[in-house]
């Protein structure tokens, strides 16, 4: 079972991963976006780590809703409301349970991903974070490692796609041949989840 501390470590692991990969995310975003994805997410997850330490929420749902709220207020770019909505919706779907199992987490993450699709209007194949998140949630029933692999494959599979959402969509066919930065950072989020679970022996 996964408790509030697990979710806090997931967020901290994501922040560390975003720190490590910020330059790569920004490089991907300079090809088809406005070259700030790495620094925006870095600012957001640094703030998430700080607020979780300060407020120490007591349930998995509370950890994720607080983290999501923080992303919406600090990121400054579209990834803020998108990741913020993902985490908040997931957190709300978890309710106030003190511990949750993998199956419940998968259901809640699906609600979160649905919230992102509603907010941004993106569907699978539009070359967005959805292309990593949907396969990851589908695979989570099989286990955390499967989710990590599915997210990474989904992110890589965005390379030949033409962007249909966000700033990259203005580039039309010129967006083809570049891996989507949002799908890439989503794969980091899922990888951090799997790493945290494996460190726990889940």
């Amino acid at each position, binding site marked *: 079972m996964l408790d509030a501390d697990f979710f806090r470590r997931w967020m901290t692991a994501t922040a560390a991963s975003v720190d490590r990969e910020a330059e790569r995310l920004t490089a991907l975003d300079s090809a088809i976006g406005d070259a700030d994805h790495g620094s925006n997410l870095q600012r957001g997850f640094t703030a998430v780590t700080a607020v979780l330490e300060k407020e120490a929420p007591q349930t998995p749902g509370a950890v994720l809703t607080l983290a999501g*709220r923080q992303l*919406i207020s600090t990121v*400054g*770019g*579209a*990834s*803020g*409301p*998108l990741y913020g909505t993902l985490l908040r919706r997931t957190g709300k779907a978890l309710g106030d349970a003190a511990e949750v199992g993998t199956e419940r987490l998968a259901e809640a993450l699906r609600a979160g991903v649905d919230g992102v699709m509603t907010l941004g209007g993106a569907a699978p194949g539009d070359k967005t974070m959805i292309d990593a998140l949907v396969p990851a949630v589908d695979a989570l029933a099989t286990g955390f490692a499967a989710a990590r692999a599915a997210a990474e494959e989904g992110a890589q599979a965005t390379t030949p796609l033409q962007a249909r959402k966000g700033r990259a969509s203005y580039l039309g066919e010129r967006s083809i041949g570049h891996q989507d930065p949002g799908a890439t950072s989503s794969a980091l989020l899922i990888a951090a989840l799997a790493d945290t679970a494996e460190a726990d022996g889940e």
Partner: protein
Amino acid sequence: MSEDRAVGIVLVSHSAEVAASVAALAKGLSGGAAAVPVAPAGGTGDGGLGTSAELIAAAAASVDRGAGVAVLTDLGSAVLTVKALLAEGDELPDGTRLVDAPFVEGAVAAVVTAAAGGDLDAVEAAAAEAYAYRKV
């Protein structure tokens, strides 16, 4: 319309200068609109290009006179941030609405309509109608 019940208008742009200039333009082009509460929410909190949820929430609170607040936005993250704040439920005043309209033309139409005593529905309709104005 009494002055203290006008619809409030918030203009959200990635740029502080754009938001402030469009607010000044809209008020300037709608003579007598001095009573309409219009607030720009442009750029990030530290003066960069982007969207700040805090600036948006503060701007909406500052123009709320109890008759609703119409929020107009420019691109991408401005739209998404306002939608996310509305979904939060308690971040923006009651009766706050994201208005689907072109930013500059919609802002002028919204301020003129609010100055004429229009309610939130009328302000929204006038701003949205600006999409129908073809230039060529």
